[in-house]
């Protein structure tokens, strides 16, 4: 390839330097994109445990982003090496927190894993959010089974939203909430969530803003940020629950 058309390769280390020393967000984005195949490879190890692959990848991507953000330039270690335990830790913690808090029959877990991709596909094919009977027909099961599987999928342990730092040194996403907003004394406005909103991690805050200010649907948000619609639904609930926990 002629040198004039060859895209110059910038090393991970240089991108990390640009990000950490100059605040170059494009460098950060490039690092994320460059290492997403690593996340996908690691996520595939956890297929078959009741979670859709794209959801596991999304969780793993959070670990990758944390690794990039926490990387110290003084470390003499490749980013991929540093990121791998972070990604695996994030995925493992996700499964541990989700943990099927109540015993879910294997059939329901498997059905739950099929729901997210099925809803995505039906939304595209039908041009609208599919109804429960439509989902059931597509999966050759009953609406009641679909509802049970949905409920099984939402069986996040509520405790996981407020447990704080975990024993393996990882930080719960909800712990990334900023500490600058201390207006909790406004607790007489129990239904007002604004102070805690300001303290949310930027990703969660952006999702809530798109949903409740711009009025975008979950499907539109999912397309915007590149996750599944069910994942958007979970993030909205998780964010609202986290905000409420802080207010309480």
């Amino acid at each position, binding site marked *: 390839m002629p040198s004039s058309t060859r895209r110059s390769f910038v090393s991970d280390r240089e991108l990390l330097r640009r990000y950490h020393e100059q605040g170059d967000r494009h460098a950060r984005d490039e690092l994320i994109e460059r290492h997403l195949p690593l996340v996908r490879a690691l996520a595939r190890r956890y297929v078959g445990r009741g979670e859709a692959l794209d959801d596991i990848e999304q969780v793993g991507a959070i670990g990758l982003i944390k690794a990039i953000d926490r990387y110290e330039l003084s470390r003499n270690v490749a980013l991929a090496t540093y990121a791998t335990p972070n990604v695996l830790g994030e995925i493992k913690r996700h499964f541990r927190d989700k943990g099927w808090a109540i015993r879910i029959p294997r059939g329901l877990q498997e059905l739950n894993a099929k729901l997210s991709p099925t*809803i995505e596909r039906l939304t595209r094919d039908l041009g*609208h*959010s*599919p*109804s*429960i*009977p439509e*989902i059931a027909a597509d999966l050759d099961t009953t*609406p*009641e089974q*679909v*509802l*049970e599987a*949905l*409920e099984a999928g*939402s*069986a996040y342990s*509520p405790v996981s939203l407020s447990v704080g730092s975990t024993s393996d040194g990882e930080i719960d996403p909800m712990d990334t909430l900023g500490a600058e907003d201390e207006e909790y004394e406004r607790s*007489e*406005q*129990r*239904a*007002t*969530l*604004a102070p805690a*909103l300001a303290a949310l991690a930027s990703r969660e805050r952006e999702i*809530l*803003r798109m*949903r*409740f*200010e711009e*009025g975008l*649907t*979950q*499907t539109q948000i999912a397309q915007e940020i590149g996750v599944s*619609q069910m994942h958007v*639904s979970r993030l*909205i*609930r998780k964010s*609202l629950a986290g*905000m*409420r926990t802080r207010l309480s």
Partner: protein
Amino acid sequence: MVADRIELVAPLGAPWEPVVRLVLGGIAGRMNFGFEELDDLQLAVERLLLEAGSQDTIRLVFDVTDRAIRTHVGPLRETAIADALQGPEPSPGDLTLRRILETVVDSFGLELSDSGELVVRLEKVVRR
């Protein structure tokens, strides 16, 4: 016109929320609500249950017409809910209970039961 009514009295607390969601899902499924519409309605009810305070039980009444589910949640002893729903418009950037309900249901309001207790009404319309 109210075609059917389903009533549920449930203990208030996280362990029983899945039961409420399942009942809502069963109703919405029979009305051909899209998954997102169902999720919205479930979110609205979940938020109200969370804000209901320390009472022991909650009564949910689902009035089902051919085009909407009208849900009554009450009695709610936490009067802050009334303030939150009847207060001024939320400022831009504020995420209040009122804003959440405005987003996820077609209409909502406060009503008094025959015994003078506070009840919140939520209405979600079928789009198809």
